[in-house]
């Protein structure tokens, strides 16, 4: 019992500590003490906790300090948690204004893109829970089928049994698909002031293009200390590891 009490207190204090760090950081932000606010927010992250608001506030702090890359980095981390957060998207645009590069996003088309958009509606854990829900519906249909006396009820239940089962299996596949997609999705932000994207992972290789801090790229592969990345407009190339910071 005593152990439980201690653990509970520890958890609460940890939680409470993180909470108070958040409030303290907010206060510092209000006083325009942005570097100190950043330190406080960072304490929360170091303690193993995070939230959309922590990243959003961090993004704001860095924007006020005119540090493009960390600002964009934190806004993007916030969007990883809540992709449709309006405040984050609004302020991200301000930070992106300071970027040297133009954001030229080539819209992805095709079936796989449509599919991906559909599966992304829910987190893969939620799809898993949906699968479970339908699994229970399967049980209920079965009960209806097995125990009902009325022919109509029996028929409908029998049909629904298979429908629900099919949906639940589909939900599992979607969940797995979405999880794989999430794991393959490796965005990163350019932190170097200017970064050469080369045709091969060698310093002497030709430059395909030069990107600047704040740009978003997607990591495809890694060789030695080079990353193969894909840019927003679809171009691919190799960059030095030290020039970018992964969002995951």
């Amino acid at each position: 019992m005593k152990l439980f009490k201690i653990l509970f207190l520890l958890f609460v204090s940890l939680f409470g500590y993180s909470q108070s760090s958040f409030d303290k950081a907010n206060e510092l932000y209000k006083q325009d003490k942005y570097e100190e606010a950043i330190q406080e927010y960072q304490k929360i992250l170091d303690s193993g906790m995070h939230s959309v608001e922590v990243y959003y506030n961090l993004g704001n702090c860095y924007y006020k300090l005119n540090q493009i890359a960390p600002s964009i980095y934190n806004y993007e981390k916030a969007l990883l948690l809540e992709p449709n957060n309006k405040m984050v998207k609004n302020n991200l645009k301000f930070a992106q204004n300071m970027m040297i590069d133009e954001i030229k996003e080539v819209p992805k088309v095709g079936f796989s893109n449509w599919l991906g958009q559909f599966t992304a509606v829910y987190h893969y854990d939620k799809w898993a829970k949906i699968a479970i829900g339908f699994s229970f519906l399967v049980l209920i249909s079965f009960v209806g089928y097995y125990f009902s006396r009325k022919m109509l009820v029996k028929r409908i239940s029998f049909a629904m049994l298979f429908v629900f089962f099919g949906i639940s299996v589909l939900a599992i596949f979607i969940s797995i698909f979405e999880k794989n997609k999430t794991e393959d999705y490796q965005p990163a932000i350019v932190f170097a002031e200017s970064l050469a994207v080369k045709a091969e992972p060698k310093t002497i290789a030709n430059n395909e293009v030069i990107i600047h801090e704040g740009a978003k790229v997607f990591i495809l592969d890694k060789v030695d200390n080079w990353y193969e990345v894909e840019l927003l407009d679809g171009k691919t190339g190799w960059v030095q590891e030290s020039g970018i910071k992964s969002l995951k």
Partner: protein
Amino acid sequence: MKKLAFILLFLTSQLMLAQVEFTAKLSRNKIGQNENVRIDFTMNTTDGDNLELPSFEGFRVVGGPYQQISQSIVNGRRSSSKSFGFTLQPTKQGVLTIGSASITINGQLYQTDPVQVTVTAPVQRPNDTSVPLIEPNESIHLVAQVSKSNPYLNEPITILYKLYVKEGSGFRNYAPTETPEYNDFWAHTIEVQGLETKEEIFKGERYTSVMVKKVVLYPQKAGSLTIAPLGLDVAVEYPTNKRDFFGRRVYGVANVKVSTGSQKISVKPLPEKGKPEDFSGAVGTFDFIVTPNRTAVRQGETIELSIDVTGKGNLELFSLPKPIVPSALEMYDPISKKQVSVSLSGMSGKVSDKYTIIPQYQGKYIIKPMSFSYFDLTSNSYKTITSKEIMIDMIDGPTSSEAQNTTDDDIVLNNNKESHSQFKFIELKTSLQPIKKKDFLSSTSFYLWYLFPLVLIPVLILAMRKKRERDEDVVGNKIRSTNKLAKKYLSEAKKNQSDKQKFYASLEKALHNFLKAKLNIETSEMTKDKISEILTERKASPESIKNFLSLLESAELVRYAPSLASSVDQDYQKAVDTITELEKNIK
């Protein structure tokens, strides 16, 4: 009247009994190329008109025309003559012909005979009547003074072209024969104002130098470069030993060609070591300034960014660095301005680029620091000047997110919208979650939850089946009902459990009742063997028969020997079981 005068003149001249002659006479027939010859066209009258001279091809007229009129009386006879003389200098060697001269005397045209002059190679001592005191060839030199013969690439050098004239000589004019083009150089000629002369000692003798041309050159290529010579044809005035009528020294004029010869310049390339990446070729000493005309703008205003380089060096020969601005700022091509003047020390002044920048969206923009590198000639090293970062703040205006979402309808509808969206404030509330979250998808609880209902289905099926089995288990049912039945028969016995006698009496009765009901045989009067036989016949199990009989025995025993020990409970249960068994087995 005129005609009368004419006739009179004619007669007079005829009376003269003089032959009109018009002749050409050379002072010499053979001369060296560096000597002069005198030709006189003489007529033995003083009245002549329309003198026409030959072309003197192959000669240059260096003196004349000298007119001489003489009259003399010889032997009572009066004669007069008039001559036109020229001093000629041959321009080439060979046999040169001087053509006829013509003149009209008394209405008649007279021509001289052509004469020939043989011109040989230049002679040591021109047997001119005058002897030059200073050889014209030696009295004049053209020198190119190069300020530096091994400059760096783009380091300015000057060439001063000076004509050195020995003291005592002079020159009348000069014309260029060769003009260098200064390939591989950026060249600028500096006008020579007036006459720049200086007394100098040249080759140990006193000379006067005259500035002919001043050129500033910036070498554009490294390596060994050759500057073509400058050549002049100078009309030199040299003193001769002759004196004129007044006693003044007579000067001869000779054309002398002078040349500087080619100049070799060894241009050093700029060192590779230490060359900054952004070096664009600037050599000299410079200042680099980047200034915006404003840093805070409202919608509709523009910013002018001036990039200036001032100083001395090859200002016209390098390009200015371009600013790197965020793509959200619209920047237009710059207006370039050059205010450069060239002097003997090179180019100096200012070159600038002015960029017009128009921010489109509200917010902050950073123009990164710009750097300008040049090669400093005073220290022979590269120097870089970096400007400061410039922050542009657009105070109001649309945000880029709005701009992407507006359509024409929106613009119409939202005309009375107050302000565009701003940079939002921080969030004050939060609910923290742990960063490392285990996936639910592959967790054990997921599997459990998912499979639970599915597993429940067969479980249900099994349960139902078991129920049905039970329902359809007639035998089992029978047993149960028989158990009930037995219990019914034995209810009486049960009631009498306290009374041994009564119990066993009713027990016995129950047993026989059972058989009666079951076999339709009255067995109360039968012997045990008989009962056993019947039961065996009816497929009862030996054990149950044994039990049945033992119960009957017990009942009898109690009836006939009440004091014997017996167990009511045991027997009751035994009876129940036996009846059940029998019920089950008996067909």
